């Protein structure tokens, strides 16, 4: 074979390779436009992520006139929303409100675990009387927080302003998220046989539930914790009506900064929220990993 031949062979080979990579893919989107579908994906991603990113960036800016915020790196917005800035403006302890809200959200989350995990389990594992109705209730967003709050205060006047009332409300309003996420975790497990294995090995039912079932559903439970925690930490409607005394819950601070402050300051407030959400996610994931298992995750 001469060098020329081998040259043209390679050439031909390349052409056919190129042609091949263009042909038929299985999915229909190649026809209506894989490009279009990818564009939708990328567009959605940008739509969802860009404002989050811009919020964080803007919170460190000095002005935002024109396309992009300018004047970095500036902590004034953060100091202002955290109540640490000199001069006029709201001085109330934002930090204490944050701590208070963290406590409330954690309380709501804990109740959601206690309440949501068992019922999600019962609904996934067993067949029983009125199951469909109970399932419906368990995943129902009851009523908008504001009217629930009015009814709540009318039912329990003494709970006005109590942290306990807020925790109960958060637990109730956010429980559907816990039930739904944990349910999908249970559905992905071989629930019955795992449970039966543990029991045949001498574990009482409750021990089985706590040491085998729950740890195996940990991803769903952690996901549920994250969602219920972050939503409770910023639950505005119910808080707004029921909160009266004690440090001002974070959600009210957030709402005020979003609706009543210039964009850069709002951005700083929302960034504070992102920061605590990120911290909560990291803590919950770390705690979840450490607490539930004897093996390293792959």
């Amino acid at each position, binding site marked *: 074979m001469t060098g020329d031949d081998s040259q043209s062979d390679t050439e031909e080979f390349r052409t056919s390779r190129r042609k091949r990579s263009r042909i038929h893919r299985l999915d229909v989107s190649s026809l209506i436009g894989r490009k279009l579908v990818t564009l939708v994906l990328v567009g959605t991603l940008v739509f969802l992520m860009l404002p989050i990113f811009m919020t964080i960036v803007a919170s460190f800016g000095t002005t935002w006139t024109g396309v992009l915020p300018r004047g970095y790196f500036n902590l004034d917005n953060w100091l202002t929303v955290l109540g640490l800035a000199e001069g006029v403006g709201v001085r109330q302890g934002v930090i204490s409100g944050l701590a208070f809200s963290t406590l409330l959200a954690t309380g709501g989350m804990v109740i959601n675990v206690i309440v949501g995990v068992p019922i999600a389990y019962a609904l996934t594992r067993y067949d029983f009387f009125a199951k469909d109705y109970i399932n419906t209730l368990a995943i129902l967003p009851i009523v908008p927080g504001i009217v629930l709050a009015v009814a709540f205060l009318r039912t329990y006047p003494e709970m006005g302003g109590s942290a306990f009332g807020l925790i109960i409300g958060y637990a109730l309003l956010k429980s559907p998220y816990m039930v739904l996420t944990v349910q999908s975790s249970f559905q992905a497990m071989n629930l019955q046989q795992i449970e039966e294995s543990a029991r045949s090995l001498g574990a009482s039912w409750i021990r089985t539930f706590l040491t085998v079932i729950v740890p195996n559903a940990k991803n769903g439970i952690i996901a549920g914790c994250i969602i219920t925690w972050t939503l409770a930490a910023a639950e505005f409607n119910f808080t707004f009506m029921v909160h009266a005394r004690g440090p001002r819950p974070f959600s009210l601070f957030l709402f005020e900064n979003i609706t009543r402050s210039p964009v850069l300051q709002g951005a700083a407030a929302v960034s504070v929220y992102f920061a605590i959400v990120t911290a909560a996610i990291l803590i919950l994931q770390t705690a979840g990993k450490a607490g539930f298992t004897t*093996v390293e995750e792959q």
Partner: protein
Amino acid sequence: MAEVTLDSVTKRYAEEIAVDDITLTVEDGQVLGVIGPSGCGKTTTLRTIAGFETPTDGRVLFDGEDVTDVPPENRNVGLVFQSYALFNNMTVLDNVAFGLKMQGVAKAERETRANELLELVGIEEHADKNPKQLSGGQQQRVGLARALAIEPRILLLDEPMTGLDAKLKDRLEREIGTLLEELEITALYVTHDQREAMIMCDRIAVMNDGHIEQVGSPEEIYEQPANEFVAEFVGTANVLEGTIHDGQIDLGFAQLGTDGLSVSDGDVTVVVRPEGITVGRGPIEATISDIYYAGETIQATALLPDGQELSIELDKSMGRLSENDTIELELDPTEIHVLSN
């Protein structure tokens, strides 16, 4: 180790009867195979013994003691599932040690014993892995070691090999069979593969539609099936109809003596296995209508002049036969089993 007895156990679900008045004893140290078509009640029977199902009627006895209402965790029964059902939140070692932990065995001791069991099933080097990292066969060994760790009175295995690769299954069948024998453990082994049951079990129960059709040794089940269902379900069977008179069985295409058979005149159904048919010589003329080379053996279908078909087995030494070749057959009277008369 214990003797298990099911005493007239019935399990009824809303729509149907899963187990229908079963009475059965598995003797101490015996491995009972349970075979039968899908949905015949095998799993339900096992779950009733383990205590997860409350029988609608009847009792479950371990060594004569009524355990019908004893909770599963107090029965000391080991379970092995087709799906492995391992605890993915624990290492392989902790899976095996779990039962001992529940018994309150100290950590050091239970880990020693769990390691011994992992060695027994040949996967000691994987002790610290997550079960998910193991292959199917390895996971099944973990499942077995975990069940054995509590030294169960009874071991229940529900299709533990289904889904494994043919080659691997072969190896595991032998290994687990040997292990069960050595440990002298009482076990119920559910499978839908009759060959597996014969290789691994001391006795076999053939179930159908919630009933037990027959219980016996593999030989009994294979050679003296109680009825047509068992004959057809276990191995290849030629079930033939005939009549008896004058001490002769008349199958139409063949007449056989009834020496050694206690039969009376009238209609008769007999079972003849392929191995009971001698090929190459004999009074029956037939044509090969189908022939398969199957490695170890050559299997064929012989078409008789009266239109009946017989499953037969050819000897390789007979040389190449092919479809439409004519052969001579003889039924061995001693290999004939009378089903009903």
